[in-house]
């Protein structure tokens, strides 16, 4: 059998194939000719033509996994922030350049076709984007993998501003369907909820627990191909959509009760209707619990079905399957897999546990105690009565072991129990995940250390071999090759393209950091990217943007611990300096924000309003004379990030130390040549170690310092009094400099600092932050020095590829081996 070289440029043949398929899809799929097709129809047909190129490999991949009886990993995540797929798929298939010819023929530009694609926002932020990066790496590394998620009809809400206030609109990415998915009706699964357990007599005279009075819905799988870059592997992201098992109630319909007729249908469809905004704290929300169980129920049944189809026995289940739980959201997998093995396959408890624990791995993503999911026991009992029984039994057996290991330590028993006692009972999902998984990992070095030392020390002590660190990563295929073609081209021209599959190869750039001609080309690329972003800002927000100014970027979810407010306080400080001395020598800066606040998070929304108010005042103040500009771009999403990241000069990673698990925006920005100003938190620490302390602006107190400060009784008012600049900043806000005629509008923000304890230590870190920002400005004045530092950052970012992260998971947790997929020539 001849095999094609997947990395060989496809050239004219590929272009011809795409054009032929495009015309076929237009003619036979849409009933249109090129001269009367809309741009949207052209976009759909182009996507389908590109998808066609991957379909043969999709089938070949599944066949290879089956033929080789390969172990597979299933990545269970409530969020997959995949964004737009067209550009990435073209690049992965090696036909990006060929499509320019296609576009010329169909009369569209690259920018036009990209703008037609909805941004699939099936996630809130880092956790969901990480899952998407992991899928890209898994496919590119030829690892047998499948993502399982929910096909939310409405993804992350669309954000607008009304007089500077965030308003939310529903996202409608599936309004006209998506060309990338393939429905698999033959693999629909039932999902049961609610009801109670009744003990009924069996033929042998014993009584058996039977689940009665349940409600049933169905999970419908939609497969999105995940195309490996430069390989034949095409994995799948399987997104589940809920629907009624019964459909329309014809009896009710025929009796004229139309509402009842569709009632169950509507209830079932609600489950996959909308993504909950905010990554944290959904406690008590019944629909969220049902969503989490829906994902777990669909995924586990799918995994077992596939396994039995290939292997015919469950004996080797744990050696052939790894299920990775992305945070506690899919933690019910522990109980669901046990339920399958016990109830549906008749295994003993001991045997079921032997198969469950080695198959499961759990990734913790947060140190915020309030974000550790806990479900009220009465709610669990009502929604998942059988699962609660299983959780109780897991707990009973587990606590027996704890009691044997630590006799008389009742405090430890209480802390480690899967059930939180005292007042209302809650089931602790993190404890369930840790007890039911053979591997538990944090997502950055500091995070893992703190996880073991402060969040769950009892578990770390009892299971020392179970805990490990897997520092997050990003895929360089999307976050450099696709989003920054200028820099990607410059790098490839200088050192070749090995970095696309081996990011450590960027090390070869280091000598070029002292090559003035290279630095000039580097700066030219950055400048072009900044002009592109400036144009976008001007189009969306109006006003003038100076591409020569320092682009100071903070893009991430809006949360107090991420401290967008600290950034805002520094902007006020700079503004005050100008107001006090209009001739002050200040490096011109354009502050660019992108962030969505959870709709119910009052303070986060107030911070957005405040930053917008800063922009209103500062951007139009003649004293400022354009030296400071503040822009908050609405509707931050993956595709907007793909424009902002390549244009950033400075990356703001300023979370309160000990609060950010890892962060991945820090990696994306640094990889694209932005310098980082950051705290000693999350992956910033490892970035600092990689790029060198002299090439990053680290400031602020460390986690242990803050803990000490907290214990000694942190008094933010004292910090304000001690620092004249901070005092002036707080006074300016309190005096209403930015209130725009609404007295007291930002008083709550002042109270955060003065009266409410400044939980996230803005005041304690302000002086250090302002000092570091001054160093940034001084550094920026020397363009070649700045460029040199930026090039060194890029060159030393190899560690932060998600390829490295996935290799670590594959080797140390999943024990997963690559599978070579051979694609026959001519059968695309």
């Amino acid at each position, binding site marked *: 059998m001849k095999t094609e070289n997947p990395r060989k440029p496809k050239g004219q043949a590929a272009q011809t194939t795409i054009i032929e398929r495009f015309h076929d899809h237009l003619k036979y799929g849409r009933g249109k000719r090129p001269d009367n097709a809309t741009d949207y129809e052209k976009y759909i047909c182009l996507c389908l033509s590109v998808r066609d190129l991957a379909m043969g490999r999709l089938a070949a991949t599944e066949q290879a996994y089956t033929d080789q009886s390969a172990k597979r990993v299933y990545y269970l995540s409530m969020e997959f922030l995949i964004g737009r797929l067209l550009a990435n798929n073209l690049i992965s298939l090696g036909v990006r350049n060929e499509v320019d010819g296609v576009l010329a023929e169909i009369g569209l530009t690259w920018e036009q076709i990209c703008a037609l694609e909805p941004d699939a926002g099936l996630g809130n932020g880092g956790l969901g984007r990480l899952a998407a990066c992991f899928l890209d790496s898994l496919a590119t590394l030829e690892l047998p993998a499948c993502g399982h998620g929910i096909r939310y009809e409405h993804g992350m809400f669309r954000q607008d501003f009304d007089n500077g206030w965030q308003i939310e609109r529903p996202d409608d990415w599936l309004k006209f369907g998506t060309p990338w998915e393939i429905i698999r009706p033959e693999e629909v699964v*039932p999902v*049961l909820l609610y*009801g109670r357990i009744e003990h*009924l*007599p*069996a*033929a042998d005279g014993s009584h*058996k*627990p*039977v*689940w*009665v*009075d*349940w*409600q*049933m819905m169905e999970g419908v799988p939609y497969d999105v191909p995940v195309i490996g870059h430069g390989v034949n592997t095409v994995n799948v992201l399987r997104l589940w959509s809920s629907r009624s*098992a*019964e459909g329309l*109630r*014809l*009896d*009710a319909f025929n009796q004229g009760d139309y509402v009842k007729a569709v009632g169950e249908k509507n209830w079932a469809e609600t489950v996959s209707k909308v993504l909950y905004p905010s990554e944290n704290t959904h406690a008590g929300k019944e629909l969220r619990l049902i969503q989490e169980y829906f994902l777990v129920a669909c995924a586990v049944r799918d995994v077992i079905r596939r396994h039995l189809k290939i292997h015919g026995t469950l004996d080797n289940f744990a050696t052939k399957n790894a299920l990775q739980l992305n945070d506690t959201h899919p933690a019910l997998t522990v109980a669901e897999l046990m339920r399958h093995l016990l*109830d*549906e396959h008749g295994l003993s408890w001991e045997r079921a546990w032997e198969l469950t624990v080695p198959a499961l791995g759990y990734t913790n993503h947060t140190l915020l105690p309030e974000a550790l999911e806990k479900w009220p026991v009465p709610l669990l009992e009502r929604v998942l009565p059988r699962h609660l029984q299983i959780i109780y039994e897991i707990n009973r057996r587990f606590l027996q072991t704890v009691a044997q290991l630590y006799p008389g330590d009742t405090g430890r028993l209480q802390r480690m129990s899967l059930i939180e006692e005292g007042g209302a009972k809650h089931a602790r999902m993190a404890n369930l995940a840790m007890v039911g998984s053979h591997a538990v990992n944090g997502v950055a070095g500091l995070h893992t250390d703190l996880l073991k030392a402060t969040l769950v020390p009892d578990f770390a002590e009892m299971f020392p071999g179970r805990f490990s660190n897997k520092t997050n990563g990003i895929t360089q295929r999307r976050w450099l090759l696709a989003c920054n073609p200028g820099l990607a081209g410059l790098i490839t021209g200088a050192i070749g393209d090995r970095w696309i599959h081996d990011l450590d190869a960027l090390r070869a750039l280091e000598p070029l950091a002292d090559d003035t001609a290279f630095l000039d080309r580097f700066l030219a690329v950055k400048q072009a990217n900044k002009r592109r972003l400036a144009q976008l800002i001007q189009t969306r927000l109006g006003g003038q943007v100076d591409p020569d100014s320092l682009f100071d970027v903070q893009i991430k979810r809006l949360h107090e611990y991420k401290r967008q407010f600290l950034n805002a306080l520094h902007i006020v400080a700079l503004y005050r300096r100008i107001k006090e001395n209009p001739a002050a020598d200040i490096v011109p800066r354009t502050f660019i924000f992108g962030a969505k606040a959870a709709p119910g998070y009052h303070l986060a929304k107030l911070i957005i309003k405040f930053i917008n108010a800063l922009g209103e005042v500062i951007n139009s103040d003649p004293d400022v004379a354009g030296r400071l500009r503040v822009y908050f771009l609405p509707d931050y999403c993956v595709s907007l990030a793909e424009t902002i990241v390549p244009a950033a000069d400075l990356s703001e990673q300023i979370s309160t130390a000990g609060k950010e698990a890892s962060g991945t925006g820090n990696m994306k920005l640094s990889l694209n040549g932005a310098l980082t100003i950051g705290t000693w938190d999350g992956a910033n620490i490892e970035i600092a170690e990689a790029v060198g302390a002299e090439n990053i602006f680290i400031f602020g107190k460390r986690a242990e310092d803050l803990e000490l400060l907290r214990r000694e009784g942190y008094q933010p008012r004292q910090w304000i009094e001690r620092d004249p600049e901070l005092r002036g900043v707080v006074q300016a806000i309190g005096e209403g400099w930015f209130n725009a005629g609404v007295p007291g509008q930002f008083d709550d923000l002042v109270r955060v600092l003065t009266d409410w304890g400044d939980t996230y230590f803005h005041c304690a870190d302000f002086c250090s932050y302002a000092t570091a920002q001054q160093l940034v400005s001084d550094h920026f004045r020397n363009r070649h020095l700045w460029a040199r530092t930026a090039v060194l950052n890029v060159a030393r970012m190899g560690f932060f590829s998600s390829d490295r992260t996935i290799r670590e998971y594959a080797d140390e947790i999943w024990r997963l081996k690559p599978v070579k997929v051979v694609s026959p020539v001519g059968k695309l």
Partner: protein
Amino acid sequence: MAFAFEKKTNAGLITISGAFTAAISESFHTQFVAWFQAAPEIKSLVVDLGGVPMMDSTGLGAIIGVLKRVAERGGGLTLARPQKNVQLVLQITQADKIMKITPTLEAAGL
């Protein structure tokens, strides 16, 4: 949706056709009770589910009602020929632990 209640040599045979859901379970229960009370000699029952593509919890509840009635007479209940989806529901709920399931009517003794 249709039900048929027949007395065979060894057992009573109940044949159900169509989705067995809340829409018809009450009607089924009424007809079953009337038929079963009129045939006190029937000790065992077979329910032929071959024509049932889908069963919800009220359908299962109706079957459990049948089981309880036949148990009062000291007899047994067999579910014959369940389709894939119905079989799955019986497994998930563990109803298959309290009722005999057979792939054919012959295997059910008819």
